[in-house]
């Protein structure tokens, strides 16, 4: 497995913005919508996902030469599930309030499309060092995306940010933002803005 693929730095940078998992590749939608009604929850989820992403990529790239094509998915899901359980138990032990609030969405990291696609695309083809760099990049990109959505939803929805009062008391909480429809609408509009900004940049570059 020569490292003919992109270098670790390229992988890291591409993870954050050019190939941002949420805005560019449209992966990992389930946690992005479900957990971003509060910054604390969003950051914990992003932290857990990055931890699982880094560990899964590391293990997969270490055993990439032994993989058989038709058992490939089974091995990926097994590795990811193990690290998610470890993360879940770790959260329940040390951050009990957060684990209660996130509830069923921690185990849903297992089927988070970002991790399986990173294992498939990068980790099963390149060395551990590139895989970790790629995982960190993707993790950071995911964190940035979650932060952007959670900020909007929490500030508008309950007037607080990370639990601290931001908007004045007389701000009528826009409850819809914290409810499921708000998640869809916020993400849809944010996706639109990102596409619009990049198309302007592209036109300016070409013009």
């Amino acid at each position, binding site marked *: 497995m020569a490292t003919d693929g992109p270098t670790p730095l390229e992988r890291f940078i591409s993870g954050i913005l050019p190939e941002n998992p949420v805005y560019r590749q449209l992966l990992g939608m389930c946690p992005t919508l479900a957990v971003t009604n509060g910054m604390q929850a969003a950051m914990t989820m992003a932290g857990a996902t990055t931890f699982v992403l880094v560990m899964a990529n590391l293990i997969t790239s270490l055993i990439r030469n032994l993989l058989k094509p038709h058992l490939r998915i089974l*091995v990926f899901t*097994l590795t990811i599930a193990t690290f998610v*359980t*470890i993360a879940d138990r770790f959260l*329940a032990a040390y951050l009990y309030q957060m684990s209660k609030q996130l509830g069923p969405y921690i185990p849903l990291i297992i089927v988070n499309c970002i991790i399986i696609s990173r294992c498939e695309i990068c980790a099963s083809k390149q060395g551990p060092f590139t895989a970790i760099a790629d995982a960190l990049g993707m993790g950071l990109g995911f964190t940035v995306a979650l932060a952007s959505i959670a900020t909007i939803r929490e500030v508008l929805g309950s007037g607080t940010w990370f639990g601290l009062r931001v908007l004045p008391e007389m701000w009528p909480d826009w409850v819809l933002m914290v*409810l499921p429809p708000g998640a869809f609408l916020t993400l849809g509009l944010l996706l639109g803005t990102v596409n619009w900004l990049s198309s302007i940049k592209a036109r300016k570059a070409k013009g």
Partner: protein
Amino acid sequence: MSDKGYITTAWLVLSLALLFGAALAGVEMLVADRIAANKLQETLSQVSVLVPGADEGKAYELEGQVFYQALAGGERIGWVIPAAATGFADKVEILIGVDAEVSTITGLYVLAQKETPGLGDRIREDAWRAQFKGKSTDSPIAVTKVAKPGPFEIRAVTGATISSKTVANLVNATIASVREPLQSAGE
């Protein structure tokens, strides 16, 4: 391929399954007691708040149900009773503090709820929960919308009558079902 062949080709999956199974059980062993402590701690920490004057809580098993004695210097001065019911959207778990003879309610705490944010979830606010303090348990508590509720009434959270009713009915039902056994409970 002979049937032995199937398993040997998948040796990687087998070894990984074995390794991960063992690793997880190990992790569980390390962390299990800490998680149990967390759960207990969350309830015990409420004991002193729910039953004023209590400094320590002790679990008390009664016909399969767990109650918590509120002790002040080793002497029981009240009880903390966990209870749960389905509210407007999802399950609502509460802790009810009562005095030793289960005659007046000394406090209420909402452990877990997923009521509509901004409306139903205001049952967690101290102002609303404080209404239960001091209510006697002789007759069930009713929920009214009027500004000045009577001795056996509490004011519903504006716009969330269903959540408020759920909590009130849950308190009445739990007290009714638990009053005799707790009164006659020994040490």
